[in-house]
């Protein structure tokens, strides 16, 4: 038997999505509530003073950033928990003894985590329509950036889940690394609003490229060229895939 075991991929994907739908209301309620709070705090309170950024109403300007924030949080947490839980419960053995390799396990877990993140981000978008008028200039590219970012960060979350030996470790990377990167990546402001030195520093943050590209798909505004944003996501995906392949090939934190 050669080639990818697609039924194996489907089994993992279905299994993960079932878990999501089993707790659908909890899965959706928390991000929707957070979004409403962000709109109240950033849109109404602060937005009243900022008015507009580069010609876009501030409330609408933060929508791509909020969606990206959700995508990154959900992708990382779903993918990391998805693979960590079998390690914790001991059921990881099933994946290691069955005819599925790194590619099937990754496609199943990461595909499901990315799908959940995209679904939630779209719910956030719908929620935002209740607060501000948002016009999407390039819907195709909006979806493309959404899906690619979800995949990239699901892959990163998957690596975190493979690496983690405890629930504490599972939490620490999203809290200490990803959240700061999102907030410093221009989720709620344009990098061009920063002084030149800090604008240069901000451009070292990979998340800035995602948010910039994503915001471009909404308003045609970008801190960095769109092509660079796409290359940044592609590099992230390729690097994460290489790391995952190495983990499965060596059995690091998986096999004895």
């Amino acid at each position: 038997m050669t080639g990818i075991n697609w039924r194996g991929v489907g089994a993992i994907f279905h299994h993960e999505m079932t878990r999501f739908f089993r707790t659908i209301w909890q899965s959706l309620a928390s991000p929707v509530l957070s979004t409403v709070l962000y709109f109240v705090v950033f849109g109404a309170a602060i937005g009243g003073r900022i008015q507009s950024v580069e010609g876009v109403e501030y409330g609408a300007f933060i929508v791509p950033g909020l969606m990206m924030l959700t995508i990154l949080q959900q992708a990382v947490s779903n993918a990391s928990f998805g693979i960590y839980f079998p390690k914790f419960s001991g059921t990881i053995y099933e994946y290691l003894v069955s005819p599925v390799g790194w590619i099937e396990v990754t496609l199943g877990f990461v595909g499901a985590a990315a799908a959940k993140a995209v679904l939630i981000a779209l719910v956030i978008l719908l929620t935002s329509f209740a607060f501000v008028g948002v016009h999407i200039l390039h819907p195709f590219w909006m979806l493309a950036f959404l899906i690619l970012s979800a995949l990239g960060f699901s892959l990163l979350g998957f690596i975190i889940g493979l690496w983690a030996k405890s629930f504490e470790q599972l939490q620490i990377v999203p809290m200490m690394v990803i959240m700061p990167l999102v907030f410093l990546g221009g989720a709620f402001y344009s990098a061009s609003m920063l002084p030149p030195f800090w604008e240069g520093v901000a451009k070292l943050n990979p998340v800035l490229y995602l948010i910039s590209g994503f915001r471009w798909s909404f308003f045609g505004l970008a801190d960095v060229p769109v092509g660079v944003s796409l290359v940044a996501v592609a590099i992230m995906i390729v690097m994460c895939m290489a790391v995952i392949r190495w983990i499965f090939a060596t059995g690091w934190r998986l096999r004895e």
Partner: protein
Amino acid sequence: MGAIIEIDHLSKQYDSGTKALDDVSLSISEGEIIALLGPNGAGKTTLISVICGLVVPTGGTVRVGGHDIRTDWRAARKLIGLVPQEIALEPFEKVINCVRFTRGLYGMPPDDAYIERILRALSLWDKRDAATRELSGGMKRRVLIAKALSHQPKVLFLDEPTAGVDVALRREMWEVVGELRREGVTIILTTHYLEEAEEMADRVGVIARGRLLLVRPTAELMGEFGKKTLTIELDAPLAAIPADLATRDLSLSADGRQLAFDYDTRAERTGIARLLGDLAARGITVRDVSTRQSSLEEVFLSLVSENAA
């Protein structure tokens, strides 16, 4: 029947230097049931783990159904079902979904009729919609068996299938294994219980310190393990064993106060009654008698020391 598993000079050495498997070679025929006996840490679980893909060997080869477990792992693993020693189940998942999931993982198309058949055979059908965390320990172990059988494997590994289960459930497990035997599934089980090996296995392999010390037909091995020693304490010491009793399997202690008689518990006549009668006829008074059977551990130890010599 041809060999379905061929293990050739298999070894596993950890970075710490511990040799978990040391040059193990074994051939297992299709449809055979083989029990691997050995004390804790002997290497039984490591052997199973290597064949199933959980542990990477440091030397040797394993072929399952003619497929090398390292170079042709997909085809090899499709033939194998594993029931692990530890109970590991997704706690919130329904029993039937757990079994369906495993079938899918092995690339098999959905077949609810087959899954119903195995759940019924394992008395789990009534619990199919229960979350696994609601089940008793014995039921959980059966779910693990159902999962291992979900993709219709040709080879089933049972790692300590009856560890920690009560006598009634152990009997049920044996019945399940009997059913599988009739269906032609090759079964490799590890156990501490001699009784379990005797009940189920065609052959028994003894492992200690990572080495496969012997593999013999169960009946042959049980004959050896079935030997007991009768110790007879005498009222007065004997200078020597009476000449007409010398042909019996008797030995006299140094102080002449104890006679030891080896006998086979499984023999039609053990010879105990006749021996006691013969002693009485010769005026040798017996004060007390006691019997002793070598424990499995003692047999292991003697095998290990023989091997080391």
